[in-house]
C-alpha cells in the first residue's frame, strides 16, 4: 500500500524516511528524494496552492500508476501545500523495492509527474512581491521520457 499525503503543515523528512525504512525492513533497496525551498536569488518565501477535489486524488492515482509500473514493496509520497521558507521541505518521495533500479526509476517517475502533472500552483515572494511561477518546459520534457499514460 502506498502512503500518500498532502501536508498542510511542515513535515520532518528525516523522520519520514526512518519510519519508511523501518516499515520496509525486508526490501533490498530504498530510494528517497527530498525537494526543498531553494535559498538565494532573493526568494523570501514560496507558496503552493492546491485544489482539494483534485490534488490528493491525483496524487493517489499517481501512486497507483507508479505501483502498477514497478514491483515496489512500498511507496511514500508527501507534498506540502501552503507558505514555506528557504530550506523547508516541499516534497518527499520514497520507494522500497527488491532491486535498486526499480526503486530509482519509480521515485524518478513519481517526482517527474508531481512536478508537472499534479494539481499545484506555485508562487514566490521576492522583495516583498509575490509572483506566480510558470511551468517550466524542462518539466514537460522530463515527463515525456516516460511515454504517455
Amino acid at each position: 500500500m502506498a502512503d500518500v499525503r498532502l501536508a498542510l503543515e511542515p513535515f520532518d523528512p528525516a523522520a519520514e524516511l526512518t519510519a519508511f525504512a523501518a516499515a520496509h525492513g525486508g526490501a533490498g533497496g530504498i530510494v528517497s528524494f527530498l525537494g526543498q525551498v531553494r535559498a538565494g536569488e532573493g526568494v523570501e518565501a514560496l507558496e503552493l496552492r492546491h485544489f482539494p477535489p483534485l490534488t490528493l486524488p491525483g496524487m493517489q492515482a499517481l501512486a497507483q500508476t507508479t505501483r502498477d509500473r514497478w514491483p515496489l514493496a512500498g511507496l511514500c509520497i508527501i507534498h506540502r501545500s501552503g507558505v514555506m521558507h528557504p530550506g523547508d521541505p516541499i516534497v518527499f518521495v520514497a520507494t522500497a523495492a527488491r532491486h535498486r533500479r526499480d526503486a530509482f526509476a519509480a521515485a524518478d517517475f513519481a517526482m517527474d509527474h508531481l512536478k508537472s502533472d499534479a494539481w499545484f500552483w506555485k508562487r514566490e515572494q521576492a522583495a516583498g512581491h509575490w509572483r506566480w511561477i510558470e511551468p517550466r518546459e524542462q518539466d514537460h520534457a522530463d515527463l515525456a521520457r516516460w511515454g504517455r499514460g
Partner: protein
Amino acid sequence: MTVANPLVDQFARRISYLRLSVIDRCDLRCAYCMPERMTFLPKAEVLTLEELHQLALGFIARGITRLRLTGGEPLVRRDMIELVRAIGRKLGANDGNGGLEELTLTTNGTRLAEFADSLRGAGVRRINISLDTLDRATFAKITRRDMLPQVLEGIAAAREAGLTVKLNTVALKGINEAEIPDLVGWAHGQGIELTLIEIMPLGEVEQDRFDHYLPLSTVRDSLDRRWTLTPSSHRTGGPARYVDVAETGGRLGFITPLTNNFCEGCNRIRVTATGQLHPCLGGTEQVDLRGALRSADPEAALAAALEFAMRIKPARHNFLIDRPGAAPALARHMSTTGG
C-alpha cells in the same frame, strides 16, 4: 422500450448503451494492457454483486437498452454467472422500469468452455472474444500465458452453445502482423466476424518497452492486395468501420483510436469495476457512482450522479497527444486500474 426519465445529455444524445466493467483482474497479462506484475485493487474497492445489479437496474430504468459486461476478464469473477442471470432477467422486460434489448460480454475466452452454456441460458446471445493470434508461441508471448488451447476450446464451446462470436484482434507490429490475413481467413471461414484494433504508439516505457504500433492503414493496404475489400455501410453505433471481403464472404472491422467522427451519435457511457462512470471514452471526466451506491440514500444519490454525468459528457473526445492521462486506446483491453 421507453422509460419515463431517459438519460439524455446536454447535446440531446439519448444514452442507451452501457459498458460495465465487473472486475479489474485478468488471467492473462497482455503486454499492451498491463504490466506482468500488476497490482490489483483491494476487493473492497470493486463493486459487489449486489451493487453491480443495483447499478444495472438503475441504468436500465433510465433507458439503457444495451449492456456490455467487460473487465479485466469478466469470467474470472466468481459470481459472474449469478450476475449475468440477474441482469438477464431484464431482457425484454416490460415492467415499467425499462428493459434490455441485448446483454453482451467481452471476454478473452479462457473460461468460455466452462461458462458458455450458462451465458446462453442467462440470455446472452452475442459475445466478443479478444484473440490476437492462432499461434501458441505468439499467444504466450503476447499474453505472457500459454492458454491458446483453452481459448480455442472456448470459442468452439461458445458456438456450440449457440452464441454469436465476434473476434477483436489488436494489430501488433512484428508480432501478429504477418499472421493477420490468416487469422481473418480462419475467422471468416467459420462465419465469425473480426474487427482489427489499432493501439496508440507508445514512447519509451521504462523496462516494459512496448512499441509495437502498427497503423491499420498499413494492414488494410496489405489485405487490399490479397483480397477485394468493399467499404460496408454496416454500423454499430461504435467506432468501428467495416469492409466486406469478397473472397471470404465475411465482414472485417477496423477501429482506430483517433477516429472521432462517431461522436455526434455517441450513445454510450462506461463504468469501471470501482463504479466510476466515464461519460466519454477519450475524456478525463469521472463520476463516482460507488460513493452514491454506498451512501445513505443510494437511489437519490445515483439519480443525482447520473444527472451530473449527462451534463458533463463532452460533445466529442479530444485525443490530444499532449494530454497525459487521456490515452484512449483500447479501453476494452485496458484493465481498470491503468493510467
